[in-house]
């Protein structure tokens, strides 16, 4: 029996592509790549905004619906070069979608060879995404990933030249599909046929690099550090809180809810933090250079987000990275004293 490895994002298209191939008697296992920029898992895990929503990894959930094994692969470090220096450039934000697809298919090929599988399948649909799924880019992905003829796109295969997988009769090309365009109608019909009752439909995509608010913060980080680079904790912290930069030397990360408060507590040993103790309010971190003047200024901003009135003096506990703790009393800034330009994003 031939064996295929499927790139599973957790969305509908990769589920459909997998099931189409399973229906032809092919054994399938899935792989899912973790870049550090994934949206849903972290947002759900950190914030309290949707407490009733089931917190789950969509790729694992999809694999379970399909009855396949799923291997989640950490590509955080290797993926940095794709984000920092994409050969084919960025999309509308900092999304290196074409380079990303090439990279992932190449990694899938390496996995396939190591585990003695025969071909790779993806849920790509021609024209579905502007950057990586245009027809002219499909051969580039196949060629540059070195997957070439063993990369099968079951949802749009009929619109592409037959691959080795089809020519050798491992799968019946006639039972593949010819989907194209941004309409999701054919996919929904096929989902109905396969009786897929539920599937992830992330609004705005599943990668933070396609999110303007997020990439604004990433660009700000590069600009103020003076170099285009990041560590894992950097890209995680960009997902959390309000980011306010009153000075080129430092910025504040101010929590927006209890979930973020709890999450940022685990970073207090890495960053100077401010915690209101006289009033209710969020935990804040200071990222950048620290001195007494900056701390006082940051405290006035942080105090603004407590329940104190503008004429209340707010006491905050300042914890340094070394573990020393001091208190500071400040009058909060008024809303007018925090200009909009300081907000890197909401």
């Amino acid at each position, binding site marked *: 029996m031939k064996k295929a490895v499927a790139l599973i994002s957790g969305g509908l298209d990769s589920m459909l592509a997998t099931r189409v191939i399973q229906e032809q008697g092919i054994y399938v296992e899935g792989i*899912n790549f*973790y870049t550090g920029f*994934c949206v849903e*898992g*972290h947002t*759900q*895990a*950190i914030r309290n905004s949707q407490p009733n929503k*089931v*917190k*789950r*990894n969509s*790729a*694992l*959930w999809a*694999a*379970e619906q399909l009855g*396949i*094994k*799923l*291997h*989640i*692969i*950490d590509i955080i470090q290797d993926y940095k070069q794709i984000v920092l220096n994409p050969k084919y450039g960025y999309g509308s934000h900092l999304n290196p979608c074409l380079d990303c697809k090439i990279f992932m298919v190449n990694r899938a090929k390496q996995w396939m060879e190591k585990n003695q599988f025969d071909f790779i399948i993806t849920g790509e649909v021609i024209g579905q995404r502007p950057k990586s799924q245009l027809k002219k880019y499909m051969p580039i992905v196949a060629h540059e990933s070195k997957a070439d003829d063993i990369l099968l796109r079951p949802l749009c295969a009929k619109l592409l030249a037959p691959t080795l997988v089809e020519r050798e009769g491992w799968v019946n090309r006639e039972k593949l599909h010819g989907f194209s365009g941004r309409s999701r109608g054919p996919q929904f019909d096929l989902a109905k046929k396969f009786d897929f009752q539920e599937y992830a439909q992330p609004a705005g995509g599943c990668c933070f690099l396609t999110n303007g608010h997020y990439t604004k913060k990433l660009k700000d980080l590069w600009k103020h550090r003076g170099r285009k680079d990041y560590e894992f904790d950097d890209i*995680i912290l960009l997902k959390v809180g309000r980011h306010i930069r009153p000075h080129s030397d430092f910025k504040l990360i101010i929590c927006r809810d209890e979930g973020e408060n*709890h999450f940022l507590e*685990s970073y207090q040993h890495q960053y100077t933090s401010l915690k209101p103790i006289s009033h209710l309010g969020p935990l804040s971190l200071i990222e950048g250079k620290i001195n007494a003047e900056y701390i006082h200024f940051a405290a006035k901003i942080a105090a603004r987000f407590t329940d104190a009135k503008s004429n209340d003096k707010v006491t905050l506990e300042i914890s340094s990275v070394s573990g020393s703790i001091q208190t500071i009393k400040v009058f909060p800034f008024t809303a007018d004293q925090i200009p909009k330009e300081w907000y890197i994003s909401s």
Partner: protein
Amino acid sequence: MTHHLDARRLLCPLPVIKIQEYVKTLYPGDILEIVCTDKGSLSDITAWCRIHGHYLLSSSKQNQEIFMTIQIGIC
């Protein structure tokens, strides 16, 4: 044999990745006790066990920490 894995502070899917790599070094029947803090870990690790033929023996939550015990299956 019983093994222990600390996956606290790791966000989804890192606890699953850590378990996945650790389990490669274990044998069928071995027990793995895991502690993690990501709220999604409970459903994710449970799903991962079902997919790969391992057995979730117990799970509990204490304050912010989630404790899970799994037995390695034949896979």
